[in-house]
């Protein structure tokens, strides 16, 4: 079964470090919210009626008229997956954390390359997502648009001429679209320009948040920027706004990287090489420390300070060192101290260090 395969492998297509500017833009995501006409939104549905939504999707996926638009999609109810498997889907950004607990009524649809995922009975009946490496929002929307057309051949959407696609939360109504990019911004952070940049972004009706960790401190210097407005702009406008803002940020990040390296080359090299050394030889490693070191190393690879490892491997490591995957790989329950030892061992192995 394909979904079981997906939770068994640590690599996803979005980690590929492909597309435009993958040294700064890790991935691009577009998701749209859709609801079925005549059925109350998921938060009002009991198990039986939620099942009707899932059944409607099963039928829509089987519609031969839509086969070409839909491609190869597989549906799996959440209760068929173990909590660990669901957590892995969360870590791979294929489903949301809240959704992973909705085992009563939820289902997930995945394409086997993990580029497309659909959450059924999350906050809306359908949340269709496309996730691609690098800055690639236009392609992501094109893929979603096709899948959406394919599903609409069977499903009647809750749509109003005036308000567009109707969603349970009024913050999503209209296009139902949330587009986002995941950015690695270590140099803006180090040069203390990040706050100014992010502040400017928030004035353009975009939202910024750290990808991991709460509050202002983003673990691994990873930030997610997304649109806030979904009503009154077309999908293309939303995406173009986000692309132009992302280009601004990434050119500033690149300028900051160069400035840092030119002003204090030894300090930057020291930081990168220390990170590489620790990752290659440490015996005990918390996920916070690992994320910090991977961020430094990623910066070093982008600046050509060290030849390898590849950015794609580092993207993958950021997911692989999280507790769910460690548990999956090791095949056993571990206490936090044991996990730190196991994590350090896994990283040493991935980076091909000499046994010591």
């Amino acid at each position, binding site marked *: 079964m394909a979904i079981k395969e997906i939770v068994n492998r640590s690599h996803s297509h979005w980690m590929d470090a492909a597309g435009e500017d993958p040294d700064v833009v890790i991935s691009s995501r577009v998701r749209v919210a859709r609801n079925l006409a005549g059925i109350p939104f998921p938060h009002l549905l009991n198990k039986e009626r939620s099942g009707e939504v899932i059944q409607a999707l099963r039928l829509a996926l089987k519609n031969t008229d839509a086969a070409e638009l839909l491609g190869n999609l597989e549906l799996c109810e959440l209760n068929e997956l173990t909590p660990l498997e669901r957590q892995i889907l969360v870590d791979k950004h294929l489903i949301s954390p809240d959704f992973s607990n909705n085992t009563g009524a939820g289902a997930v649809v995945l394409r086997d390359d993990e580029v497309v995922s659909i959450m059924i009975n999350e906050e809306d009946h359908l949340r269709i997502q496309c996730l691609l490496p690098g800055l690639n929002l236009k392609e992501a929307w094109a893929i979603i648009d096709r899948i959406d057309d394919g599903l609409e051949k069977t499903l009647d959407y809750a749509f109003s001429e005036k*308000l567009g696609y109707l969603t349970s939360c009024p913050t999503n109504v209209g296009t139902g679209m949330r587009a986002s990019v995941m950015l690695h911004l270590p140099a803006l952070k180090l040069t203390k320009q990040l706050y100014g940049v992010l502040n400017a972004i928030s004035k353009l009706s975009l939202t910024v948040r750290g990808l991991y960790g709460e509050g202002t401190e983003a673990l691994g210097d990873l930030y997610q920027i997304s649109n806030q407005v979904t009503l009154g702009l*077309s999908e293309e406008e939303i995406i173009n706004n986000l692309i132009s803002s992302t280009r601004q940020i990434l050119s500033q990040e690149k300028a900051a990287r160069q400035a840092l390296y030119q002003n204090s080359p030894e300090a930057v090299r020291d930081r990168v090489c220390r990170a590489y050394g620790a990752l290659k030889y440490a015996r005990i490693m918390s996920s916070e420390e690992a994320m910090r070191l991977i961020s430094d190393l990623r910066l070093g690879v982008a600046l050509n300070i060290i030849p390898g490892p590849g950015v794609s491997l580092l993207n993958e490591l950021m997911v692989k060192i999280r507790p769910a995957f460690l548990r999956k790989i090791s095949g056993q329950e571990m206490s936090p101290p044991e996990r730190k030892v196991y994590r350090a061992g896994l990283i040493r192995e991935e980076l091909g260090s000499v046994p010591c």
Partner: protein
Amino acid sequence: MLCDRCGQRQATVHLTEITNGHKNETHLCQVCAGEIQPQGFGFAPQLNLHHFLAGLLNHELGGANYSQQQAAGEKCTKCGIAEGQVVKQGLLGCGDCYTLFEDKMQSLLRRIHGNTRHTGKVPERTGGSARLAKEIEKLKSQLKEAVGREEFERAAQFRDAIRDLEKTLEEGAGTDGN
């Protein structure tokens, strides 16, 4: 600075409370801050989006206090959700709720999106007249541009196309009603 509570560890959490204009500062270490938190000490405000929206909705829907009475207010005939519950959860019950609460939603939508009208994708099959209406809008703006550039021949083409579509729209609306 040492923690005000245990007096042993470095204080890293600095809490400033202002009550009735009186300022009170507390300095805590990470451990004590973590222990105190569950007792309802006012920090870590975790402003959940739905709660936030619920607050806004409460204001929009006339400011009535629905917090104690979920079943209060007008009820949607399709999904049965009551205004009070919408206000409490910050979520609507179904697509028809948008029609029911339309007037009240207007200013909320304007505040969230700065807009109250969809201009994006229209579903091919179920979009029906909306798709034609969108096409007409597009042609109208092209017509305006053509007139502005004094390209009257092109403008006439757009005008005819608009007429044709409007005719289809009227006929379509008739059959939709059946």
